[in-house]
């Protein structure tokens, strides 16, 4: 009996000693789920750290990608046009007068002579107001509007005329293209000498696509996104993702190519029937876009948003309609949200959401020094 009790006691003791160990080993289903979720979070955070945070911190040490100039030879060697020298008058031998002298044909206007074409827009001297700037080379007029939508939006339209394409430039934050290099847009505008500027297409976040800035080719890869090309002849064309070939676009000598999108208008200048943008991007947002009327005549549009009582923002379809109403023949959506900014004479002209944020590039209008011409 004693022996039995001892065995029983021993077994109980053994079980008691084993029980806590077993409890420690076996986890409940809830604990397992929690453990897996925690592990997932750690993996995601590690990924974000390696992929996003560290590269941004190390941006200054990242080598800038190689670029090559694709400026047309005519632009590289362009010299100011000189008036034709008067030819020496030679003694003319008397000849028989022609019966009907042929009328001299009228000179055809040079399509690239925007200074003459838009002469009534420019002024001999620089004239600056709180919403406009005119000079012999540039005419900018910015107007503020409030849409009559259900949720009204405040937007700004900068009507731009330039005498030369060189007055319309882009600028990389920090002065050169580097991944993740971003800077305060006001500082960018000041560094670039911009009179007027808007945020660009967030190209600094990517190392793919077709990218040309100020005649420098950085990347030449077809992507699934729409692009916008501004050519050296001043024309601006937007392409749907499947509407272009990289070699064809490059063969037309692009001056700038943006790669955000979507393209907003069709070839008739009407809003596209569908947009190459997913739900969140096409939803109501602060927006920035560029519009094109004709060579030398463009517009920058910025819509404020996410600010109750002041401005809601616009859906992509409404934004496209806005450009169609302005009479643009092509229009393209750039980076939006908190990035949407318009600066004029070194300060914000719009009211950016949460005071804006650093941007990777800007589109700008500026005067060109004589040393830069040609």
């Amino acid at each position, binding site marked *: 009996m004693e022996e039995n009790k001892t065995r029983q006691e021993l077994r109980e003791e053994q079980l008691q000693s084993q029980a806590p160990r*077993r409890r420690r080993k*076996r986890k409940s289903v809830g604990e*397992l789920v929690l*453990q*897996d*979720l925690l*592990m*997932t979070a750690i*993996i*995601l955070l590690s*990924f974000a750290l390696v992929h996003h945070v560290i590269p941004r911190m190390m941006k200054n040490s990242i080598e800038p990608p190689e670029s090559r100039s694709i400026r047309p030879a005519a632009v590289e060697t362009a010299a100011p046009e000189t008036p034709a020298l008067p030819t020496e008058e030679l003694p003319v031998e008397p000849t028989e007068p022609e019966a009907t002298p042929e009328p001299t044909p009228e000179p055809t206007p040079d399509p690239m002579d925007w200074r003459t074409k838009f002469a009534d827009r420019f002024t001999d001297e620089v004239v600056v107001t709180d919403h406009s700037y005119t000079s012999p080379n540039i005419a900018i007029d910015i107007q503020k509007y409030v849409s009559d939508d259900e949720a009204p939006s405040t937007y700004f339209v900068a009507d731009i005329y330039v005498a030369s394409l060189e007055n319309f430039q882009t600028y990389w934050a920090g002065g050169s293209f580097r991944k993740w290099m971003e800077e305060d847009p006001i500082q960018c505008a000041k560094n670039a000498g911009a009179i007027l500027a808007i945020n660009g297409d*967030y190209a600094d*976040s*990517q190392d*793919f696509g077709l990218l040309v800035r100020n005649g420098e080719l950085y990347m030449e890869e077809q*992507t*699934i*996104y729409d692009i916008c090309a501004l050519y050296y002849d001043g024309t601006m064309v937007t392409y749907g993702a499947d509407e272009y070939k990289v070699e064809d676009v490059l063969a037309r000598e692009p001056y700038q190519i943006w790669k*955000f999108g979507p393209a907003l208008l069709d070839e008739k200048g009407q809003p596209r029937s569908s947009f190459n943008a*997913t*739900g*969140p*991007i096409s939803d109501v947002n602060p927006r920035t876009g560029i519009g094109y009327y004709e060579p030398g005549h463009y517009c920058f549009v910025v819509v404020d948003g996410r600010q109750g009582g002041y401005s809601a923002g616009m859906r992509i379809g409404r934004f496209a309609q806005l450009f169609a109403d302005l009479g643009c023949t092509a229009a393209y959506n750039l980076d939006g949200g908190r990035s949407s900014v318009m600066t004029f004479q070194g300060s914000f002209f719009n009211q950016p959401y949460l005071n804006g944020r650093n941007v990777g590039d800007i589109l700008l209008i500026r005067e060109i020094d004589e040393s830069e011409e040609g």
Partner: protein
Amino acid sequence: MKKLEEFIPHLSICLLLCLAVFMVLDGYNPYMKWLTSTVSKVYIAICCVVGITTAILLIVRQRRRKKKPRQE
């Protein structure tokens, strides 16, 4: 080996959940180019579901196998 057998299903669940998070992020911001082709997105979504289900079933089976000797 037994430890590895127990660990791999959990690792599969975690990695596939990460992939599912990328899919959601891609929906919100396709500009980041997490995933591109629609066909591959559908394929990846199916893989996520199948993989996570397989891993859960494996964990359940392992737990049952562990439980049995204690019930005897």
